């Protein structure tokens, strides 16, 4: 998977690069509008992460260029400008998604995967993880080829974990992924605990191993191997 990161802030660019490389993506970076423009004209990417506020130009113009070139690349806008207009305009121009800064890296990963999945896995749209197979199109979860019935929230939670294997997911990131705005309601962390407990139980009852671990003081993690 080839991803272009367009971001002018060096530390953030480094974090994104580190994070996405660790996740197995082939990454390139651009720190200015000019550089990014050159790269998208020269190379093909599966997805482009575009920061809107660049020192020498507006990221929205990169989206325009990509769309004008009929590029296959998915576009995920990252913006610190809390502008609803930017979001609407970006999506209207054909960007696949919009994420306001600051964001959880896990959330970025979940969105990135969703974009890539929508664009690429034509035909064989499924995720496999150890003894687990998920068909996101049909919201079907199989353990050892046997279907498992999950609630909507449990399913969302499982997909979020599958998008971020081997990563510590904080309760905050999970809560915001599942409830969005309502995440800072007082009991949301208790609900995560309850949903996770149920999810683990359902998976284990179906014969799956316990892959979802609690990391003391931080959150939860989907472990790839014991």
């Amino acid at each position: 998977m080839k991803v272009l990161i367009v971001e002018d802030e060096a530390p953030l660019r480094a974090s994104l690069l580190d994070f996405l490389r660790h996740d197995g993506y082939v990454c390139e970076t651009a720190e200015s509008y000019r550089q990014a423009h050159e790269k998208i004209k020269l190379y093909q990417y599966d997805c482009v992460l575009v920061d809107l506020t660049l020192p020498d130009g507006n990221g929205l113009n990169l989206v325009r260029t990509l769309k004008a070139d009929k590029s296959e690349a998915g576009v995920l806008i990252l913006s610190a400008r809390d502008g609803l207009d930017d979001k609407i305009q970006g999506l209207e121009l054909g960007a696949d998604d919009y994420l306001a800064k600051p964001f959880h890296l896990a959330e970025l990963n979940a969105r990135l995967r969703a974009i890539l999945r929508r664009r690429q896995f034509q035909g064989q749209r499924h995720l496999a993880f150890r003894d687990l197979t998920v068909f996101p199109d049909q919201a079907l979860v199989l353990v050892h080829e046997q279907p498992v019935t999950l609630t909507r929230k449990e399913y969302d939670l499982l997909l979020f974990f599958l998008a971020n294997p081997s990563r510590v997911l904080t309760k905050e990131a999970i809560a915001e992924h599942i409830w969005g705005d309502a995440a800072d309601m007082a009991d949301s962390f208790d609900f995560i605990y309850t949903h996770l407990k149920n999810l683990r139980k359902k998976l284990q009852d179906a014969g799956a191993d316990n892959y979802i671990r609690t990391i003391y003081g931080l959150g939860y993690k989907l472990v790839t191997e014991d």
Partner: protein
Amino acid sequence: MKLLTTTNRYYLILVLVLFALGTGVLYVGIQRALAEEVDEQLLFHRDYLRQRIRQAGALPSMTNPNELTISKSVRPPGLGDTLIYDPVERTLVPFRQVSFAVELHGQRYGLTLRKSLIETGDVLEVVLTVMLTVMGGLLGCLVLLNRWLSRWLWAPFYRTLDSLRGYRLQQPQALELPATPIDEFSELNQALAQLTQRVTADYQALKEFTENAAHETQTPLAIMQAQLEQLMQLPELPETAAQPVHELYRATRRLSRLHQALTLLSKIENRQFTEARPVQLDGLVRDKLGQLQEFLEAKQIEPELQVAAPLSVAMHPALADSLVSNLLQNAVKHNVPGGQLRIRLDAHALEIRNTGLPLDGDPTQLLGRFRKHNAASDSPGLGLSIAQQICGLYGGQLRYTFTPDGAWHTLRAQF
């Protein structure tokens, strides 16, 4: 009141005073001139009679008693007024008379010449008729003139007014005012054009400032959050460090949310949300209740939604969303387990009532910024302030009341 109406009012008062004065002066003048004329004629007639009596050596034979009386008793000579009963008109008619004496054949006769005066009422009538006709004509002309003036002369003013009404600060093009040959209006237009240019520049600067402030704050926060998240992934992170790192991470989130809320508040205050379309609030309430389902169930709250009339308000969709979710989240968050939540919509208001803990403190302070029920909570306590600002932006009002009986908290968004 229109400018022209006001001018007319003063003009009318002035005209009325002048006309009253004029009528009085005219009346007195005419009366006096007439009286003088009558006196002159009487005196002339007296001299003529004296001469004739002296020449003829006899008194005039045929006399109309109303015009000339002759008696042997001599009255004191001179002019005087008298009233004589007119049997035909059955009224007393004013007469002017002059008495004098003549000597004929050694006998003194007293003669009195009289002349009827035109009745005062008649004179007044004539004067008033003339004056009122003139005044009526003048007023009629004034109305016509004003109509013409307001249509033609004031037209540039009304055009300016129309352009101003249609002008929106957020629109990209400058205010366009029609050129006019009238100095006052063209000065007004110039001043307005300059004013709107300055205001637009200020507004633009403010808008850019809010956006830059958001960008400049959120970017370092994004860096902090990303780095902390990466730090948390390190397998070699000791357990003693995990807790502080997580606290830092939470604080970063909190700061970022606080800043987002403040940016939203200042954007509402700066009226940066211009787009508005009708939003059906009942549908939105149902959606949001669905999203809060889990939180409601956890507290065993059965929300009751009563839609007396569908409420549709023209507002920015994102703000409508924020308003409803802030109010509902507030009602769930501060509810008690097993409590109640009643939502009522009518044609003008959205009312959310929930049971909760008794209120401590000033109810009017509740909508203020950074008001928190629980001081330790992560939420910045801006939700109700935001809701209040949104109501205010669309000409509405958010009111809070507390009923101690049953500890009901009521928030009513009136539009």
